[in-house]
């Protein structure tokens, strides 16, 4: 069923009786061409692009709970392509371009809102680093504008310019960045994949991999054994646990990242703003809530909840940079599990086991990457070659030393 204003009107006038499920609830088949383990944003996007771009439709997406229950349903919804390193920037710019055509692509309004991101800087050295980054972005065909203090004032007159501990000297602005209605991304990809024949199997947890002659030929699940020519794992927050079933140790630690939303407010923020002298980033949702976050708690955790020190640290950052939000109330705080990689960059790669593929290690930057991650993972699965923009995301890059360390923090996951 095609969605349109006309359809909404027609259904509205006839009691909304004609709407059908956005995805089917099929029974698992015995055998698929491709099994994607993980019904999050990346997994569903992979399925969508496998079907749409590569014509591979005999695909199942296995989800242990409900689709979109991982970080796609639990993030601060920011999209941007403001990366520094040549191994990263073209990938994220591909993602941005896919975001820009996404709704027409899967006929679902995920409310891609390109209202820009400003990364504030507070020192000359930070400005220089942002200038290097902005130029990298422009060299890669993305958009970037270096603002001085006056430029930031024009864009965000409500920041603390006059009484700040770390004065705002300017910002790196990416006008095409923005936010997206996160849950709708999962649903839209599910709809796109399902409509092309992909089976989305909820409440279907993978409990083991089937290996034959050293090759992965399927999975054991809570809904029975399912065979496949290729098995592609895509389970942010559970990567180490799942890959351990294939006997693999990963360059990943799982950490909790908290995020926050305020009560609904009339529009007050123009786009995404990040603080450069503390851990704080913020945007305002279409519903009016201030959506904000900061640093990870910093210790390994699978608990999907955090502790107070980081909550206070984040709000201190918020009050330092925009003290007008003081009387807005924090409505809800939650925690998601981030698969932090050893250099802050992700993995999209084959594994040492033929037929088994891995996508993960997105740290807390996975949401914005959803379309490109799906696109490149589908490309890898379909062609057995990495996509041009994702050649750096090798699982064994630490053996060779070809690290992708945007922050220069070294092999310590909680610093990325």
């Amino acid at each position: 069923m095609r969605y349109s204003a006309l359809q909404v009107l027609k259904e509205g006038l006839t009691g909304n009786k004609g709407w059908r499920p956005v995805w089917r609830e099929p029974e698992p088949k015995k055998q698929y061409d491709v099994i994607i383990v993980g019904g999050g944003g990346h997994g569903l996007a992979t399925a969508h692009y496998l079907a749409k771009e590569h014509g591979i439709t005999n695909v199942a997406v296995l989800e242990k709970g409900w689709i979109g229950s991982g970080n796609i349903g639990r993030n601060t919804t920011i999209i941007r392509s403001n990366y520094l390193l040549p191994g990263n920037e073209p990938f994220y710019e591909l993602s941005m371009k896919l975001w820009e055509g996404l709704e027409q692509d899967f006929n679902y309004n995920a409310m891609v809102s390109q209202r820009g991101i400003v990364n504030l800087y507070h020192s000359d050295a930070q400005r220089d680093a942002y200038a290097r980054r902005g130029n990298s972005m422009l060299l890669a065909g993305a958009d970037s504008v270096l603002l001085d203090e006056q430029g930031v004032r024009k864009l965000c007159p409500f920041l603390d310019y006059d009484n700040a501990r770390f004065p705002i000297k300017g910002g790196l602005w990416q006008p095409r960045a923005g936010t997206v209605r996160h849950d709708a991304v999962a649903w839209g990809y599910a709809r796109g994949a399902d409509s092309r024949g992909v089976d989305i199997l909820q409440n279907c947890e993978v409990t083991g991999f089937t290996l034959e002659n050293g090759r992965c030929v399927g999975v054991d699940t809570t809904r029975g054994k399912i065979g496949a020519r290729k098995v592609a794992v895509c389970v942010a927050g559970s990567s180490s646990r799942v890959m351990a079933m294939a006997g693999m140790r990963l360059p990943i630690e799982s950490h909790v990242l908290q995020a926050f939303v305020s009560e609904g407010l009339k529009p007050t923020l123009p786009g995404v703003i990040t603080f450069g002298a503390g851990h704080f980033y913020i945007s305002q949702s279409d519903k009016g809530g201030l959506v904000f976050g900061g640093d990870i708690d910093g210790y390994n955790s699978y608990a999907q909840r955090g502790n107070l020190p980081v909550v206070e640290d984040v709000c201190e950052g918020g009050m330092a940079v925009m003290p007008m939000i003081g009387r807005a109330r924090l409505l809800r705080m939650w925690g998601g599990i981030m698969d932090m990689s050893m250099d802050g960059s992700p993995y999209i790669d084959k594994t040492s086991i033929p037929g088994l593929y891995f996508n993960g290690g997105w740290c807390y930057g996975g949401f914005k990457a959803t379309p490109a991650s799906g696109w490149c993972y589908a490309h890898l699965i379909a062609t057995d070659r990495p996509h041009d923009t994702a050649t750096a995301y090798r699982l064994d890059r630490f053996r060779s030393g070809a690290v992708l360390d945007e922050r220069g923090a070294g092999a310590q996951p909680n610093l990325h």
Partner: protein
Amino acid sequence: MIIHHPLLGPRDAAEFVYLGDASLLNRPDPAAPSAAEDFYTYLHLRDNTAGEHRELWYHEQGDRSWLVLTRNTLTHEITRVELARDVAGQAS
């Protein structure tokens, strides 16, 4: 979280800085023929356990002890706290 420091008693976790898996105590032999592979594995690959996890914390806002905590990553329950130098000493 509260960490029961073996010398100082209960302290807020906010006084500490976290490093990671306690396997970082076991620095490989740099002279071994397999040193390149050993160091790659040592520094980068993790069990990343969901459950009981031995891990390194540093009492930065305190006595500067490195501690080895045994903490459950699913519940955050801490069942054991040791001085890292004691653990490292036992290992060698």
